[in-house]
């Protein structure tokens, strides 16, 4: 056998995290270090399979010597850095971000949002009921997934997943600027008229449920969606030889949605239409 390439050796970076020594491999972000140390830093636009976008600023921390607060999700750890995650200033900033988001966007299906709002004492109502909401109805234009832009926090994860970071279909984009900026499919077309190939990779990364599987959307509407009654089992797609890993979410012996493990070497969390949606045949029970 020939020698096995080991790749570039990685060094460890030493710095302090809330006064304690922290060591992480070179290239790690402050967020990686926080998570490794078991610290709960909220994140919304960070995606473990995507390049950090720094859009939401809910993850900010203080770094000694830095004038502004620093987004933990994108700042790489540097030797000697002194990071404080839980300062008054950082907490206040997160609180305001949460208030702004929660006043203008429906965060009811965003995992973690309710706890963070409570923990940070955020009061979204203080902007009054007139805070800008899109107030539009969810778009149900196909049988596979639904877009509910009332829940969109403009994190751009879906744009990145559909674009050059993964799928390269470029069906999803941002239209408008500033306050008018919003996510759209080809300048507001129905999905069925777009370049969308229904891989569902945008749904996989959406942090708020603005994009959701139709199965989940329908069950929520009917009041039957119950995550506590669901099991998650990872198996392998049977539709081609690529061998994508599928996590089947099962409730009452029915597959209710399919995701993929983000750290999987085959998929990196992505699937194609067949793997994501092609499960119905096993439960055609006559």
């Amino acid at each position, binding site marked *: 056998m020939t020698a096995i390439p080991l790749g570039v050796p990685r060094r460890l970076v030493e710095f302090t995290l809330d006064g304690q020594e922290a060591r992480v491999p070179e290239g790690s972000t402050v967020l990686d270090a926080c998570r490794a140390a078991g610290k709960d830093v909220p994140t919304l636009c960070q995606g473990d399979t995507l390049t950090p976008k720094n859009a939401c600023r809910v993850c900010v921390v203080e770094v000694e010597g830095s004038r502004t607060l620093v987004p933990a999700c994108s700042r790489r750890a540097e030797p000697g850095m002194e990071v404080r995650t839980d300062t008054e200033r950082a907490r206040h900033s997160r609180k305001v971000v949460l208030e702004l988001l929660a006043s203008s966007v429906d965060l009811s299906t965003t995992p973690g949002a309710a706890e963070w709002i409570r923990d940070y004492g955020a009061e979204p109502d203080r902007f009054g009921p007139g805070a800008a909401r899109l107030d539009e109805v969810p778009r149900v234009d196909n049988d596979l997934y639904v877009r509910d832009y009332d829940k969109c926090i403009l994190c751009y994860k879906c744009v990145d997943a559909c674009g050059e970071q993964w799928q390269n279909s470029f069906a999803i984009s941002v239209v408008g600027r500033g306050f008018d900026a919003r996510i759209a499919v080809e300048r507001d077309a129905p999905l069925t008229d777009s370049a969308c190939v229904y891989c569902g990779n945008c749904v996989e990364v959406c942090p708020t449920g603005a994009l959701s599987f139709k199965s989940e959307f329908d069950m929520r509407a009917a009041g039957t969606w119950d995550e506590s009654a669901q099991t998650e089992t990872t*198996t392998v797609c049977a539709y081609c030889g690529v061998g994508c890993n599928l996590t089947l979410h099962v409730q009452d012996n029915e597959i209710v949605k399919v995701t993929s493990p983000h750290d999987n070497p085959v998929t990196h969390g992505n699937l194609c239409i067949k793997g994501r949606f092609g499960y119905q045949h096993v439960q*055609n029970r006559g």
Partner: protein
Amino acid sequence: MRERDRIPKTYTRLTHPLVRDSRDEPFRRASWDEALDRTARGLAAARGSFGMFSCARATNEMNYVAQKFARVVMGTNNVDSCNRTCHAPSVAGLSAAFGSGGGTSSYEEIEHTDVIVMWGSNARFAHPIFFQHALRGVRNGARMYAVDPRRTSTAEWAESWLGLNVGTDIPMAHAVGREIIHAGLANEAFIERATSGFEEYRQLVEPWTLSLAQKVTGVPAAAIRELAHAYARAERAQLCWTLGITEHHNGTDNVRALINLSLLTGHVGRYGSGLQPLRGQNNVQGGGDMGAIPNRLPGFQDILDAGSRLKFESAWDTVIQPHYGLTLTEMFEAMEEGSLRAVYCIGENPAQSEADSEQAVRRMRALDFLVVQDIFLTKTAELADVVLPATAGWAETEGTTTNSERRVQRVRRAVTPPGEAREDIDILCDLATRLGHDWTYADSEAVWNELRSLSPDHHGMTYDRLERLQGIQWPCPSADALEPSYLHGRLWEPDPARRGVRAPFGLVRHDPPVDLTDERYPIRLTTGRRLDSYNTGVQSGSFASPLRRGEYIELCPEDAERHGVVVGEEVRVASRRGSVVAPVWIDLALRPGLAFMTMHFPDEVDTNQLTIEANCPIAGTAEFKASAIRIEKLPAVTYVR
């Protein structure tokens, strides 16, 4: 335009065994005991004239048990699966060159290569997640070349599209090879050290000048030259192919012609340089690895090798026939001759997937006994004497499958199967017991551990480890080490003893498609896949894909105009074997004289009525990619409203 039934037939799950007492009667519900007794009787009467159709979509464990059933219980090597209709030529070609039939690279390597050649592969549609890895390669700076008769959406990502005429892959490959040699770009050190037959190869390709190749393939000489130079000059290059190469009457030769290019340039056996046949079914690789093929025992060990036979004979306490069994193709021929009388068909649907499907059905009807084990009452199951309801391999069964990068991964039971459906292994073991062999496996892991004890390539893969590492690529002989992600690194060893057997150049000649076009059948029909559908549509037909629009005959705008047909208009498509009626679709990916159809909607348009059963003599794969057809306009229909 006439209205067609656009909703694909949906199948409902089989929930209990079905039997019938004669072929003229309908099925009736039976108990497992009755169904298995009937099956055992049917099979016992057929010792010596039996064939097993194993399943390239089921687990490794099931394939292992199925081939063991054929070899031990039925005493035959007649076991095969639908890999015969797709990638058998890749296995045959790769093992002839390197002694092992697996693709040589991992997916990750294509992200770190310099040149990617997609030859006869619309990976963007057929292998989308592999294509994501390829696109990462392109984003990292790799140049991609697409060699395909159609200008597919894969080709849209390529630096250059080489739109060759169907069935001219060998002239193209030989011209590329000749150009590499003449330009002084061949890797002489590698050729000299690790290959054999170069001089004969050089003479073989010498007539294939760029201008002759241009004439035969229809691709401009400059484009062929550019591909040759890019591939040969690249530090690392990946050559990927799928059924556009294999589904020809000379599929194995096509594969050899491509492998020659890797031998010429040394693009094999190194990280980032390799050969990647992308498999169409989830476990085509594993089915073969498990010995569910007529010439290999589990672990891809040759049946003709007495040492290997002995190992299995003592482990299984049996005698293994010292000769190759029949391939799927040969089994169908043996049905015709009457020398194959009973078939056990697991999870396959040959009544719709075989080329010239009417003939396949006629042959299966003539069997004395047919048992089908499946999750649906497929067209094939409708022909059976006994139908056994099984669990879905990927969602209701524990086990493993092996993907195109040779990665063995765990599949798991996530839902409870319907009714009385039972796992394939369980059914097979029950039958074996009825036929006098006491087979009990506690679970799939017990089967896997038996396989591990007999296959050095799988020895180090315990279930625990597979789980922990999210799959392991073979070979994996040791339980505490991992091998490189690519195969055949040995070819680069300085020490001849460790370098091992030389890789021979394949001396293959151009042989045009069997079904020639002429004035009566002037159009070349080629087949392939669409993104959202799968094979005969039995499974993929059940989900509500917004992309699905049923079956069409796709033509280029010029051909549509010449025939005076428009989108949606129904036409008769006729070949020398049969005809079907299908609506027209215009596709700019096609060129004049080239039409395209799929096999996804056989209940609507049975494309395989048109295809030809001209088989690759080495691998037995039929020439699905090249039929000669004509388009007939149907008389106008006047609707009375």
